[in-house]
């Protein structure tokens, strides 16, 4: 039972991760032109995270709770919901705010990212965290869908 909303949610989340990876690369050795591109990439990342939040949230509220959650909970791997879905749905809420903070810092710091190494490193680390957390969302999504598939294969 593959729902297009879950694909759109995952795709938008991945695009957001790629956007912040793009920011990271631009800011490794920043110039005025690269900072301009980093602002564009971070803006896109924020947009993608919010869109992923809304689409994933709609799927979660309308379909997951009634169609997927009970099957995982009755299946051989109930921890896929009890630990990983619960963690994912709440830690995901950090990402739109982290991405807004990264975007705000890039605008605030501007050309200081060229001159002040410490500011550049702080923004790079924040972008790294966003990328790693985004990838961990994808990994948890894989664990949750595997829990669902295994439950279906068990005949539930």
């Amino acid at each position, binding site marked *: 039972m593959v729902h297009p909303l879950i694909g759109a949610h995952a795709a938008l989340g991945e695009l957001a991760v790629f956007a912040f990876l793009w920011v990271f690369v631009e800011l490794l050795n920043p110039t005025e032109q690269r900072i301009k591109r980093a602002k564009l990439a971070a803006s896109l990342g924020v947009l993608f995270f919010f869109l992923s939040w809304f689409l994933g949230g709609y799927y979660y509220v309308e379909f997951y709770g009634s169609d997927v959650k009970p099957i995982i909970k009755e299946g051989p791997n109930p921890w896929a919901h009890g630990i990983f879905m619960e*963690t994912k749905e*709440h830690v995901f809420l950090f990402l739109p705010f982290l991405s807004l*903070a990264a975007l705000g810092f890039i605008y*605030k710091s501007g050309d*200081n990212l060229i001159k002040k190494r410490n500011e550049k490193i702080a*923004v790079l680390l924040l972008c790294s965290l966003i990328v790693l957390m985004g990838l961990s969302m994808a990994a948890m999504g894989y664990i949750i869908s595997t829990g669902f598939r295994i439950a279906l294969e068990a005949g539930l």
Partner: protein
Amino acid sequence: MKVHAKSLTHSTVLTIALITLITVWSEMSKPLKDFLAGITGHHWVTKGVLAFVFFIVLYLVFSKLFNDYEDINKQGYYIIGAAILGGLIIFIFYVWHFFA
């Protein structure tokens, strides 16, 4: 775009703290979870809306109250620390909650 870095840092850190606190608290207290669900129809939606409104309001209030930092050197580290700590608390809580 003029950004108030101090307000952005404070509002991000406090929003992460709110999400973490309300997540754990609502699992421990059914009346709170039911109350959150009663506001929008689902507890998770209420948490999201609450976090978003909280973030915006805090940013606007702190922008009026505080002078901004000259640079953002340490700000990123506060946010990174809060996100790692909040994420770990939520994950460890749900591991404990599942096996309890």
